[in-house]
């Protein structure tokens, strides 16, 4: 019963996201095929993750799980249902002092089960004017643990104006999700070098600013 409600909820979410954003995927660097991938994306709004989820073709969507913060998604029963059952999120605890489980271990576990992942390497929402915040080490640690998984830079464009921070009603505007060329951790590549390269690959996908 719960599973059925979660499934219907998932479809409704996709419909709603399409209604508001006419969401479109631009597969610039890869094809939408069933391969294990980590989609790592810029994060400026709570709608980022549902949007990426929406533009993935259904066959890929079924195999893709977002990585999300437990402290946010377990706050209320409704959120927990949406996060755990509907989106099947891999919930990790961002607060080092509270956690009982290593977040990287959970993520690797999900990878080993065959899932693809959606990941926000900035570690939180970007509220600044900068296109990207510095990446946390998580992406590097995952790439070290499972070298052969494709890391796909995924740029979400145009979502901020739909629901600026503090607003509750989304205004319908077009959004695009751009998928770039996958990268892998190279032999002997250091943390900072790798994160810079990954960050660079992501910000290069950003369309030129309109004035």
């Amino acid at each position: 019963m719960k599973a059925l409600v979660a499934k219907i909820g998932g479809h409704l979410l996709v419909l709603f996201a399409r209604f508001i954003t006419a969401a479109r995927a631009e597969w610039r660097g890869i094809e939408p095929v069933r391969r294990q991938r980590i989609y790592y994306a810029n994060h400026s709004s709570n709608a980022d993750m549902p949007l990426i989820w929406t533009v993935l073709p259904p066959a890929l969507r079924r195999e893709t799980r977002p990585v999300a913060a437990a402290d946010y998604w377990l706050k209320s029963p409704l959120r927990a249902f949406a996060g755990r059952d509907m989106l099947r999120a891999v919930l990790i605890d961002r607060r080092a002092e509270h956690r009982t489980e290593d977040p990287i271990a959970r993520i690797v576990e999900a990878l080993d089960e065959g899932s693809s992942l959606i990941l926000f390497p900035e570690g939180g929402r970007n509220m600044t004017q900068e296109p990207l915040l510095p990446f946390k080490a998580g992406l590097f640690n995952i790439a070290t643990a499972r070298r052969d998984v494709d890391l796909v830079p995924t740029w979400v464009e145009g979502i901020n104006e739909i629901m600026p921070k503090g607003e509750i009603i989304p205004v319908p505007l077009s959004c695009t999700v751009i998928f770039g060329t996958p990268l892998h951790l190279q032999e002997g590549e250091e943390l900072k070098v790798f994160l810079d390269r990954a960050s660079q690959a992501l910000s290069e996908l950003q369309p030129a600013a309109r004035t």
Partner: protein
Amino acid sequence: MTETSTQLVLLFAAVVGLLFLATVAGELLRLVKSEDSPVVDTFVTRVHSWWAMVAILALALISGRVAIVVLFAFCSFAALREFLTLTKKTRADHWAMVVSFYVILPVQYVLIWWGQEGFFTSFIPVYAFLLLPILSMLRGAGASFLHRISETQWALMICVFCASHVPALLVLEIDGFGDKNVLLIAFLVLVVQLGDLMEYFAGRRFGRVRVAPTISSKTWEGIGCGLLFAVAVGWSFAWITPFGVAWAGVLAGVSFLMGVGGALVLAAIKHDRGVRNWGHLIPGQGGFVDQLDSVFFAAPAFFYIVRYFWV
């Protein structure tokens, strides 16, 4: 069968015949050109989109006023979404945009369904025009204020006010025409879109002098051919209108020219914003605004001419 539906069926038979020819031509071209040709592919995709659009419009016209109003309300919604994506806006405009989408757009179409002519012709140009800037001001005004409120109002005028004048044709009470007003919609859409198609192909074949070289590939030669063709289409479909042959031609010509003007104006906006298409929802054509730009400009002109001389 009533007279209206008989005429509608005849009309759609003609359009389906044309589309059938276009489909056959596309497939033949595919056979003749052994390699993949992007031009042929685009043509075939466009013809497929045309089939879908004709089918949807036909269904709506047969189903009656509610379906037609809903269809154009949806077109307005999609067009407004594309348009406002490209306008200048800040957080202060959020509520003005929310109200545009969830209040003004539905109210405009309810007024049309209800037949409140005095109100739907003034609702956006007067009430929305005055109300929305007040909302943006209350939310903190900010930089480029006039610029931003003007763009929001322009988007509403084009995508909602102008577009809604297509279903508004149903409201007109024309002497001796009875309840056949859906045929006016069919007539308007047909002359504008067929004129556009002819303008496009003629312009491609022997167009030389561009009207606005930096923003559009439209040529004076193409527009001339399109105009002649639109007038001819107007004449040949005069039997579904209350205008008589000569005036049907004049109205077709005026609608076509307004449409070309609209397409050029919206191309200028696209050029200014550095985009090729308004959207992506109609395969081979771009967005709703790309497809309907000419109808947006032609509809109010057609509506007010008919209203002035035939009501």
